[in-house]
């Protein structure tokens, strides 16, 4: 019997396409964000609140990912933000080739920050690189503070964690410290932003972080 040693990453083809996507984003000076959360956590709402925030100072673009419908893309298009919708027809996560196709539908020269709203799912998206610069993982207050413990795979790959619907916390048995501890357990370095898209509380720190991430991109590309 012949043994062929490979040690080859299973998703190497996806990762290659992701690297090409990253290159395309970098050449346009775009900060790409992979937004991952359960269905209903508030991804679309936060994208809108962020894109329309007077303090953002960056032009937004959106790639929407859902199994079906244009509901989210239509809501974003209604605010005159460049957006394209990917329908996976049953696929439970976005992959790099889908993003590569979607990028050609967007005016990349008119975008500074690209929000990629992944399919609502706390398991699968963690494994599939898209070519974005940062993974943003959401929890929402009504989901409970134990989600970082139950879904460590996705929280471990987060570059930042957002806790949405913070305005509901007084009505829930949600323990913010327990949530933060759960995130720290698998991801000591990720900042946690506690906010409400609806009331605007906590949005300032999130906007500041985004602006800093985009500025760091400019510095990195100028250094080349």
């Amino acid at each position, binding site marked *: *019997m*012949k*043994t*062929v*040693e*490979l*040690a*080859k*990453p*299973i*998703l*190497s*083809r*996806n990762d290659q396409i992701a690297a090409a996507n990253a290159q395309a984003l970098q050449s346009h000076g775009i900060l790409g964000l992979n937004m991952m959360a359960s269905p209903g956590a508030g991804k679309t709402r936060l994208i809108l609140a962020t894109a329309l925030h007077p303090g953002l100072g960056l032009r937004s673009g959106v790639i929407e990912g859902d199994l079906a419908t244009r509901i989210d893309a239509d809501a974003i298009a209604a605010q005159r933000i460049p957006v394209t919708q990917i329908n996976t027809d049953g*696929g*439970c*996560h976005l*992959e790099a080739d889908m993003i590569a196709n979607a990028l050609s539908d967007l005016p990349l020269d008119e975008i500074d920050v690209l929000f990629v709203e992944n399919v609502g799912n706390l*398991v*699968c998206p*963690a*494994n*599939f690189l898209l070519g974005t610069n940062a993974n943003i993982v959401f929890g929402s207050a009504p989901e409970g503070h*134990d989600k970082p*413990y*139950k*879904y*460590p*795979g996705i929280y*471990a*790959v987060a570059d930042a964690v957002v806790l949405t619907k913070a305005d509901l916390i007084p009505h829930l048995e949600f323990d913010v410290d327990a949530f933060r*501890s*759960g995130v*720290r*357990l*698998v991801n*000591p370095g990720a900042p946690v932003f506690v906010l409400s898209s609806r009331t605007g509380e906590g949005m300032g720190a999130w906007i500041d972080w985004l602006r800093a991430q985009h500025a760091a991109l400019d510095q990195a590309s100028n250094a080349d």
Partner: protein
Amino acid sequence: MHEFSITQSIVDITLETARQHGDARVVEVQLVIGTLTGIVDDSLRFYFEALTQSTPAEGARVAIEREEAIATCARCGYSAAVEPPFDALCPQCLELTLKVEGGNALTVQRILLAEDSQLVSDPDSASSPAHHPV
């Protein structure tokens, strides 16, 4: 769920390797898969079987080595493999100091090929005639 997409990639890598060795029959595919990837062994094997019908990899064994997530305490050095749900409490020094790393591996480690199909370019059997399995 997403075992299909991942298995498709495993099959692509496997068949490409078999192709590079004259479409040799695949005996075993050895994978390393982290416990935090959420991949279910049975689903993966189910899709592998379906996707390798009528290929050199039909009937191949799929061996899965699990890469564990390891919790470590920076305070007292305690270290152990852990499964979710995770607990930050270190059982040795009783502080909330555990940090978890690893468990995300997704690799085709090695492939075992049968040597009953020899090919002209195989350096070990330069004198054997080329054999092309049906």
